[in-house]
């Protein structure tokens, strides 16, 4: 099975399984920080003002393109914990069909104990980022129809 044949639900379940192995917040956060540090998430050329989502606290860049009728997302942030959460979100949403992205929810974030980062009042740009992912999916969906 190719990686992009895995459904959003399956990926979310995998992530929940992975996080269940951590004993405390430190291990969870260290994992996200390491994710944030190791992953090259976005091509520098896409870190433009057009692709920026300004949170009050941290900045997020998102780029999308359609490949084989799947939306490929790349993203980045200037804050590393935000970037770690982006890595998780990209793993879930990228390489999926526009209709699946539109239908997906982010409830799994609650289950892995990172709910506070997706609070609309957190102002780290993540809530706007998820909205942006969906907007791209809607736009590509229209294109495909």
């Amino acid at each position: 099975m190719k990686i992009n044949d895995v459904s959003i639900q399956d990926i979310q379940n995998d992530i929940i399984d992975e996080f269940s192995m951590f004993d405390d917040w430190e291990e969870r956060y260290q994992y996200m920080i390491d994710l944030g540090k190791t992953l090259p998430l976005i091509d520098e050329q896409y870190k433009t003002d057009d692709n920026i989502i300004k949170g009050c606290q941290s900045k997020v860049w998102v780029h999308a393109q359609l490949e084989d009728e799947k939306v490929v997302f790349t993203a980045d942030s200037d804050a590393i914990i935000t970037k770690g959460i982006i890595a998780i979100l990209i793993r879930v949403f990228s390489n999926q069909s526009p209709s699946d992205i539109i239908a997906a929810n982010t409830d799994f974030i609650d289950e892995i104990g990172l709910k506070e980062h997706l609070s609309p009042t957190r102002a780290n740009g993540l809530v706007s980022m998820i909205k942006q992912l969906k907007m791209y999916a809607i736009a590509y969906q229209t294109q495909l129809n």
Partner: protein
Amino acid sequence: MFKVEAIRQDFPILNRQVNGKPLVYFDNAATSQTPQQVIDVIVDYYSHYNANIHRGVHSLSQEATDKYEQARHTIQTHFNAKHPCEIIFTSGTTHGINLVANGFSALLKQGDEIIVSALEHHSNIVPWQMLCERTGANLKVIPMNDEGALVMSAFEELLSANTKLVFVNHISNALGTINPIESIIEKAHAVGAAVLIDGAQACPHIKPDVQKLDVDFYVASGHKMCGPTGVGMLYGKEEWLKKLPPYQGGGEMIAEVTFEKTTYADLPHKFEAGTPNICGGIAFGAAIDYLNAIGFDDIATYEHELLEYATEKLLDIEGLKIYGTSEEKTSVISFNLEGIHPYDVGTILDKMGIAVRTGHHCAQPIMDYFKIPGTVRASFAFYNTKEEIDALVAGVKKAKMMLS
């Protein structure tokens, strides 16, 4: 000897835990905590004499009015205003600033100049930009230097016969710099300009004497002085408050109303349209009484001790840089760890029960000056301890370890 342990007993919130750890509250520059003495006043108000003021003939209304006016008197005495009518109750500092800005729109003309400082909070920049748009006046900015202090020689160069207003904060919220307001007021007056000082950050730490300062307007917020949110005060010299038109129309602020003409009430009611935050005003007065019972000299001395202790301990951490190193500063430390985003540091500290502020502190121009996205800001109050600073230092070290 400052009895911090006894003082901490007054603040029930300090006993709580956050994320399973004892709360270490270092976001005092955003909002201070409330002592039981003030909480009791709030409970007493709603339990015993909650009523609308200034117009009821019944006993409850009379009692509430007396307490509210007594609070005004407490504030007047605290700030040493000449008359009680020079104290206007507001919803907070931002309200006070907007009230004055709105009033000046009737007094300014094209070509007039307003001077603000580079150390301002957004709330102290935006109303003046709006005022300039309305009137055609120009906004000038006093620059700051690398220590986060205002460049006074540049201020003197900005002053001219066109200067009508100067607006400066007493203490910068982002860096803690204490501005030389005595000299600013004196120099502004020399060219005939009025001065408004934003005392939001200063009033929890020092006791300003508005007559001695000879300041024209001074604003403060209750919630930074151990009082509740949603209440503050504007001091204005009587002659200035008489000159300014009312800000909002409504009940309380009128003398006589017909459909042809309304005459306005006298000061201070001219600026207090509608039912005010009665309980908030009374509790604000109680908070001022509480702070005075501890004593501002003792508060300043103790907080300075905390500041020096924390500065030394934090600077021991390699790669930690403090922003705002002016000699005249209050108990605020704005800092960053090299190569680490302040949001990340704040998030890790929160996990350890330590409340700090991260971000640009509503002072983006300052962050632009230092070319940083923001800072981590720890601000100390008289109920904080050196042990809590040790917890902060340990937390910052841990954040550094996890994030580098």
